[in-house]
């Protein structure tokens, strides 16, 4: 009964939420390959949005457009309109470096830096000058680790290398690292695909909590995961955005036959 009420409340509040990022007619080309075709999506604030679809459908590519990570790939070309709070992020006066501080990213494979746990978290705040002194930095590090639900496991060994943690811990460390720069949007590219079920459950729980402060976009292979953690779902197929709607709607009553086929396991 309780959860029903909660769900209805969250359903209702989705509609009221602001648009955090909007994309209109986005095309992405890798050399001659047309990887993303005319995609239009609005990412809402304080919402988990899931991108699902079969391998190679372009969901990761599209995710990487949202913080211009594709800039590091030479042959990649992005056209169309992508806005963060109404501001065109591909405009020439936008510095991708500053953009990425606002739109953080967590990757498929945990990639802690070969530094201590503390330095891994402190890296972002330091380079962006978010903290004035050591005490503030300590505070940011602790807060980030707490919010990534890993503080209790690492608080006694902050000076040890982050690479020495287990896979699930490493991934939560990477999430903490992304949170530490105080982004507005958090992009997650299959954050659980390298993890075991228990670590996955922890990360999913964490994602749900993060929604309170960020807009979260998650790419996932697992439809169950999308159904569990997200409020909005976008289904990609062969570079097209097939369907974008409330998660409940997509998983119970999809509008498109391809979505229906995919979520019922006919292909993918």
């Amino acid at each position, binding site marked *: 009964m309780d959860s029903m009420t909660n769900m209805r409340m969250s359903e209702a509040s989705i509609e009221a939420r602001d648009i955090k990022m909007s994309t209109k007619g986005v095309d992405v080309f890798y050399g001659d390959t047309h990887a993303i075709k005319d995609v239009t999506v609005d990412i809402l604030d304080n919402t988990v949005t899931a991108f699902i679809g079969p391998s190679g459908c372009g969901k990761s590519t599209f995710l990487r457009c949202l913080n211009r990570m594709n800039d*590091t790939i030479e042959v990649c070309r992005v056209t169309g309109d992508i806005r963060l709070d109404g501001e065109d992020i591909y405009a020439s006066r936008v510095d991708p470096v500053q953009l990425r501080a606002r739109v*953080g990213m967590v*990757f498929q*494979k945990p*990639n802690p*830096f*070969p*530094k201590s746990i503390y330095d891994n978290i402190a890296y972002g705040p330091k380079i962006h000058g978010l903290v004035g002194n050591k005490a503030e930095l300590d505070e940011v590090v602790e807060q980030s680790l707490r919010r990534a639900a890993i503080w209790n496991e690492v608080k006694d060994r902050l000076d040890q290398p982050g690479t020495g943690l287990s896979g699930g811990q490493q991934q939560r460390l990477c999430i903490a690292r*992304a949170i530490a720069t105080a982004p507005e949007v958090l992009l997650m590219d299959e954050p659980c695909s390298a993890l075991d079920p228990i670590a996955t459950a922890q990360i999913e729980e964490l994602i749900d909590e993060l929604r309170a402060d960020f807009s979260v976009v998650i790419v996932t292979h697992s439809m169950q995961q999308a159904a569990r953690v997200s409020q909005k779902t976008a289904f990609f197929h062969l570079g097209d955005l097939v369907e974008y709607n409330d998660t409940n709607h997509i998983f119970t009553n999809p509008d498109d036959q391809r979505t229906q086929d995919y979520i019922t396991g006919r292909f993918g």
Partner: protein
Amino acid sequence: MLPLTALLIFGLAIGFSILARGRAVQVSAGKLASLHSRPAYHGLYSFLWVLIVGLVVLIVLSVGWRLWLDAQLMADIRAALPDAPIIEHDLILNDAKAISDGTLASRTGEVRTSIAAAYGSGNTLRVWVSVALAIASAVGVGFVTLAKISPDWRARNRSENIIQVILWFSATIAILTTVGIVLSLIFETLTFFNQIGWRVDKFLYGTRWSPLSGVQEGVIDGDKVGALPLFTGTLLITVIAMLVAVPIGLFAAIYLSDFAGPRVRAWAKPMLEILAGIPTVVYGFFAAITVAPFIRGSGEALGLSVASESALAAGVVMGIMIIPFISSLSDDVINAVPQSLRDGSYGLGATKAETIRQVVLPAALPGIVSAVLLGVSRAVGETMIVVMAAGQGANFTANPLEAVTTVTVQIVMLITGDTDAKTAAGPAFTLGFTLFCVTLILNMIALSVVRKYREMYD
């Protein structure tokens, strides 16, 4: 005669291997799968046994007999001329061999002629018996291996065992050679220290180096073997070389790995590596003829007094020589830093500079450190450039504009000089031993640094 026999044994081995293959096919009676080992392994087994037995018999017999023969002849010489010094005995034996071989002897005489005759007959016997026995044993072993061939005969396992022994033997030779060199270095070093009355401090901390200036009397003067100027000279040139090589090499590596496009990289990296292929002697005369006068000229224009052969010239050119080592090795380790680490940093809003400085370089640091230490080893051991460009005067100075000399240069001077090799050997070996210790320590540090940090990214 003996080399020809070795070749013949090789031919025999090939012959027996072909026979063994044929025999294996024959015993299989048309069903090759019934053999435990493929015919090729039966061939290999025969080949290895024939070759090894033949060569071992040949070498052991001929060398052993030769030693025995020489000992016999020496005994005869001693009996004939009991009063002559040992060096005279050696000379007589050499002359006798020369007379017997028909080449030029330093002197002839009655004793020499008789010894020559004895040597001639003994030697002929030695050669013929060795050759005959070697061939006979090779053929014998060949037939034994042929006789063993049957479908159940495990020729594959056995030949693999033999090859394993050969591999072990090769590794042992490499290790024993190293041990031998080190031992001879240590032994000669101890002899030298004994000559200067165990005043090791005089060698290590003395500032006057002219070890051969007293040797006419056959004594080495402990006050003239102070190697400190050589050590400081080596250090000075090495420091200058690394000051040139490390920044340029490292920056080149960073450019190549993180900034250059694939097309630039495709030709720039081989170009850099060509630098490593230039013989050091070419760098040497480049330093002496081009760089040293240039430095002297520009120094004088600034009002400095610069020696025509200076540590600076040698160091700079040596640095250029070492650039490709550092850039190529560093480029490899920087490239080996996973792209995911770079992505992670960019994803946090780091700039390229921040990413390289704070993520990529720390991750690549062990590799870079070992590259630098290998470069230092090269610099310390380098000779030609210093001989030509830095001079030979053992000046005790820290001024890079003066001529200095290094450990390696002084070893060259000692060994190539027209002094008695036995006198010059002491200081030369001792310097060599010092050099060996330094490079060994550097290499060990480099290896341990690499090992300590390697597992962090796997």
